[in-house]
């Protein structure tokens, strides 16, 4: 896609890439590349280096470390992070609670949280989903009852990524069960994870790794300063937060990273010869490259405001990119699985964990079926 960029953007991209390769330890990037499980300290190390370089929170307001990049620059930065397999800044910190605090927080909250959030001195987790409120988030029922200035929390959150690593949680809680609509009467609260009454239980997943959790609340007391934004108006905060999730939704940088890895592995001598000499591998590889190019170009059209011609209207782009991006990411993990099948051992085990884990990409964050419903209605008028 080289020729589609201005000289300036090309330079920007190349500088970012060079910096990342020079500053982020190879060992960290190798772990990421091969789907080896990252420890808490790996994420912390990566994010602190990025923060020092001004690359952890470039999309935040300038006074809190933001860079005022153009959408294309932001895109190129994210893509280079992925292509170079840099362990990404924790999304709960930099994409979710950070921008929320910068927008809705009190001055005291901003002072207290934003710098440590950018530097991963505080590890945040997200308390949104509940057993019966996943795709249909507004159905949440976990209670925050008024007691004095603060609240008492009771109930359960689920799918809470890295709750077992987290220092603080931000989440949505029902502060007014009598509100006339289910989107009303919800508040956005933040509190430390070591508050008494919080219990974290691992959810075992098919990749055999510990990432998601259930979090139970029994009479958990939080203070008045836990509230972000207005009481009972937490849905507005959530909408703002979820809107931010849409950047780089396709994750094509990961696809390209994995295609690079595949090419590299295919040129090794394997137990059944050099994979690069296997025409069936080459066919699948080429097909993936063609598809990636096409989706990459769709993404460029969306980024440059020329989406209408291809998408009908620009706001359909997110759903299309989510569907195709997840499909392509999954297809690359599948090809990697096949490439390492005859190799066996730990290399295969890591690839298998990656393959199984990334099935979630087409499920989480609004499943591909939900995206198709959105498109059927919004783009096709059905």
């Amino acid at each position, binding site marked *: *896609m*080289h*020729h*589609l*960029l*201005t000289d300036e953007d090309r330079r920007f991209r190349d500088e970012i890439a060079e910096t990342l390769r020079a500053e982020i330890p190879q060992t960290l990037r190798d772990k990421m590349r091969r789907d080896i499980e990252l420890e808490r300290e790996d994420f912390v190390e990566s994010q602190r280096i990025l923060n020092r370089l001004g690359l952890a929170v470039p999309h935040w307001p300038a006074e809190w470390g933001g860079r005022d990049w153009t959408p294309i620059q932001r895109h190129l930065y994210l893509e280079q992070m992925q292509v170079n397999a840099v362990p990404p800044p924790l999304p709960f910190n930099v994409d979710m609670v950070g921008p929320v605090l910068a927008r809705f927080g009190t001055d005291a909250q901003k002072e207290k949280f934003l710098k440590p959030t950018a530097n991963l001195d505080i590890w945040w987790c997200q308390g949104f989903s509940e057993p019966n409120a996943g795709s249909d988030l507004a159905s949440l029922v976990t209670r925050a009852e008024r007691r004095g200035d603060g609240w008492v929390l009771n109930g359960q959150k689920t799918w809470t990524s890295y709750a077992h690593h987290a220092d603080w949680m931000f989440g949505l809680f029902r502060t007014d069960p009598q509100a006339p609509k289910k989107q009303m009467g919800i508040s956005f609260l933040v509190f430390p994870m070591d508050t008494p009454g919080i219990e974290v239980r691992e959810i075992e997943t098919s990749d055999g790794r510990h990432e998601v959790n259930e979090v139970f609340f029994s009479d958990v007391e939080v203070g008045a300063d836990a509230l972000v934004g207005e009481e009972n108006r937490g849905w507005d905060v959530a909408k703002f937060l979820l809107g931010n999730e849409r950047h780089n939704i396709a994750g094509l940088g990961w696809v*390209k990273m994995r*295609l690079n890895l595949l*090419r590299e592995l295919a040129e090794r001598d394997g137990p059944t010869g050099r994979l690069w000499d296997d*025409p069936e591998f*080459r*066919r699948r*590889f*080429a*097909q993936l*490259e*063609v*598809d*990636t*190019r*096409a*989706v990459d*170009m*769709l993404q*460029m*059209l969306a980024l*440059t*405001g*020329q989406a209408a*011609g*291809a*998408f009908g209207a620009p706001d359909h782009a997110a759903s*299309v990119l989510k*569907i*195709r991006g997840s499909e392509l990411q999954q297809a690359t993990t599948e090809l990697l699985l096949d490439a390492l099948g005859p190799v066996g051992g730990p290399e295969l085990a890591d690839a298998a964990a990656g393959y199984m884990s990334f099935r979630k990409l087409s499920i989480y964050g609004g499943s591909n*079926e939900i995206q*198709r*419903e959105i*498109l*059927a209605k919004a*783009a*096709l*008028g*059905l």
Partner: protein
Amino acid sequence: MDFEISEEDRMLADLAERLFPPQGTSADAATVAEAGLYALTVPEDAGGFGGGLLSVWHVARAAGRGLAGVPLTQTAILPGALLAASGQDTLAQGLAAGEARVAACLDPGLTVAGGRVSGQLSDIVGAEGADWLIAPADGPEGRQLLLLPLGGADVTPAPLFDGTPAARIAMDMDLPGDAVLAGGNAAEDALTLARRLLWLAVAAETAGAAEAAVAETAAYLPDRKQFGQRLADFQALRHRLVDMMIAAQEIHAMSLHAAMALGAGAVDADVVLEAALLKAALAGRRVGQEAVQLHGGVGVTQEYRISRVFQRLTRLGLAAGGVSGLTQRLAGREARLLG
């Protein structure tokens, strides 16, 4: 790279859309000539638009969407470019003005020997009723690009299976003195240029036809009832239509990408073009098949526009040697496709 459409291309796209409306009847050759669209790739100093690759993309996409009955690619885009490349300003002016009808064919089949040119050509799009044929011929001087008067040949109309006007040609005549447009490297360069235009036009036309398939199906599903429900109420059909739409968008993006890459002289432009063709062929075919299936019984009748869209997509999917050849070529590349 500027993603904005230029003023000229906007005008050309609008013109093409008026001539080949997404609904209704597509213009005949005379109307297209009068509107000036035969001048698309004729240089401005020969009275043409001097349209480049992006102009070709916009016009071909509109032709695909509107199921143009006139084979613009073979009778305007290629002849204009080939005449321009060989300095045939007079004939180019005639083409631009709609006075001379020229068809171009890029495949071998003609032979020059002993001062005569001869050969059998089939499926020559746009040759029925044309005055001139531009075609390569092999002979003692190697491959040459010839401009031949069709009056001296035996031209039998034989439309392609989607109704595209075409002819079989049997030729055996004295080689006219001024027939050679180019020889040697110049001939190869001209043919390479023309092949790029042809492939780009095929990909862009597929993008337009796939869009049309999606639009027709999206209009049909809410209209038609079965077992007391609108077809649009069946979720399985809705989801399949969404996947068709995404496929059409990918063809659109990829063919536009090829046009921009060729225009920018990108090092990987020819690979991007082949990738765009493969994407168009595979995705266009699936879109056509699904559109027919979602229309049900009427999908295979001529009553609804979709059957003609399906025919068009089927024919376009066979261009450039077909999916096998394209897959082989792309899979066989040592260099990575992604820049």
